[in-house]
């Protein structure tokens, strides 16, 4: 398949600070869903802003659909091709009604009124918010705002969708709904996220960024289950992944309450055992110790 996004030696520095991104060489094929993971400050959002043309690359080159980005007017030039859903919906939803917000891009394309209305209708139906046209965006719930944010981009019918933390601050139901919507998007997707469930449900490839560099690039399962790699790059494997891995390998894993403690017990078939105390009965136990639980591991 063709490469729709390519970067060569892409670097970026905020002001005179440290390098936010350093020599990123990347090629994303058409239809791929790439999850960008990494600790806070690893460069995920910066990479998305560069790909969308909002930031000017200090060094290197970005090629979208085989064309290099122009020196001037990058943001406008990519309007019809690359859609960006930012982390805070209040930055994305700036109009007075949902209709106006979703229509904004289509109106700027100079489309006739009928076509604008049709696109708004389609986009709102796609995110399950038909009938919300006259609602006021900043009065919506967090999940609804996120879905309207997606609709604003869908209405422009881009072939590439960039998403910055699309499931953060959402309740479980809204989160699953947003995951479904992202999965239904027909084009290429690049998602900056910390949400491992989103990655496992949507991504076909994971790029792990660490201190502005690509630390790993590969299939989602191999990266999110590599505990050593994640720990080295300042990430932690979520318990749910650990649990799923145990089930997958036929080992015994259980989560249970023991007196006032919440305990994760693991017994492998070859006799290895591990106990992680998630919630201590002792009120002064250190939070980090509880989280990582390494001192409670027993061989």
């Amino acid at each position, binding site marked *: 398949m063709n490469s729709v996004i390519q970067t060569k030696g892409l670097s970026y520095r905020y002001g005179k600070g440290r390098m936010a991104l350093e020599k990123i060489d990347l090629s994303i094929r058409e239809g791929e869903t790439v999850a960008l993971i990494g600790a806070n400050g690893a460069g995920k959002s910066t990479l998305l802003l560069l790909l969308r043309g909002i930031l000017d690359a200090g060094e290197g080159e970005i090629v979208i659909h085989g064309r290099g980005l122009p020196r001037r007017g990058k943001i406008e030039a990519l*309007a019809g091709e690359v859609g960006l859903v930012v982390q805070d919906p209040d*930055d994305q939803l700036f109009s007075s009604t949902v209709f106006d917000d979703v229509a904004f*891009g289509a109106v*700027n*394309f100079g489309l006739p*009124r009928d076509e604008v209305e049709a696109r708004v209708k389609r986009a709102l139906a796609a995110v399950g918010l038909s009938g919300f046209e006259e609602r006021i965006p900043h009065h919506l719930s967090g999940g609804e705002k996120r879905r309207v944010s997606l609709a604003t981009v869908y209405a*422009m019918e881009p072939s590439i969708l960039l998403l910055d933390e699309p499931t953060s601050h959402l309740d479980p139901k809204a989160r699953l709904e947003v995951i479904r919507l992202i999965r239904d998007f027909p084009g290429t997707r690049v998602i900056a996220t910390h949400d491992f469930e989103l990655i496992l449900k949507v991504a076909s490839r994971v790029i792990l960024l660490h201190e502005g560099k690509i630390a790993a690039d590969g299939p989602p399962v191999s990266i999110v289950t590599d505990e050593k790699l994640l720990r080295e790059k300042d990430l932690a494997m979520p318990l749910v992944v650990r649990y799923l891995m145990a089930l997958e390998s036929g080992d015994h894993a259980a989560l249970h309450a023991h007196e006032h403690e919440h305990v994760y017990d693991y017994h492998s078939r070859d006799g290895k055992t591990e106990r992680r105390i998630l919630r201590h009965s002792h009120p002064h136990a250190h939070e980090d110790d509880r989280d990582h639980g390494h001192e409670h591991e027993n061989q």
Partner: protein
Amino acid sequence: MTTDHLLYGAERSSLHRMDERLKLTGFALLLIAMSLLQTPVAALAACGLAAGAVVFARLPVVLVLRRTGGVALFLSTFFLILPFSHPGGSRAGVQEALVIVLKGIAMVLTIFPMFWTAPLHRSLKALAGLRLPQRLVTLLLLTFRYVQTYEMRLAQLRISLQARGFRFRRNLETLRMIGGVVGLLLLRSFEQTERIYQAMLCRGYGKKGGIAEGFPPVSISDGCRFAFLFLLSLLLVAFDLHLRGWG
């Protein structure tokens, strides 16, 4: 305060159903006519008309009067100044002050049926329909949108201050804290403005203002309502001219 237009903008009267472009134009003409009045009787008649429009629009009269009261109180200071400074003497000064106060009240009262009979964003969009530059209308819409957001954020900051034991008092400490909070909000708003502008550019913002106008064609009943407002404006000016002895 910024949500009043939502509370009363829901359909209640035939003024609510009127096309916003014609409504704004009709009431603007009425406001211009009111500003031209020079006799106390005509100004009083304008007050009556404006009060009638408020009642006709089925707006909450007590709330409207409360909001108008502050303006009336401010305007009444003319009674303290003009009788002593008017070149025509104290009697002419009182008459002049009376005209100013009555005209002011009439105009403020007129603004309520003008803007509270539709959600404000629809009225602002109607300005684009009246061929005001789209960028200006976009700016007004954005201002209106984010004033509400920052109103909410200010309320949140106030709660978070109070939750940490801060009490608003009349002292330097409170003033310093308020200054800090307002500064913080300004700083955040400045940063957010950049992000919003980028989001607008991402969605093709440029030559066009991005406003989907979409007003339906003007109906005959809307035309009649506009003609009525136009006629009232003419009658008001004619009445004032008649009182001033012009024909």
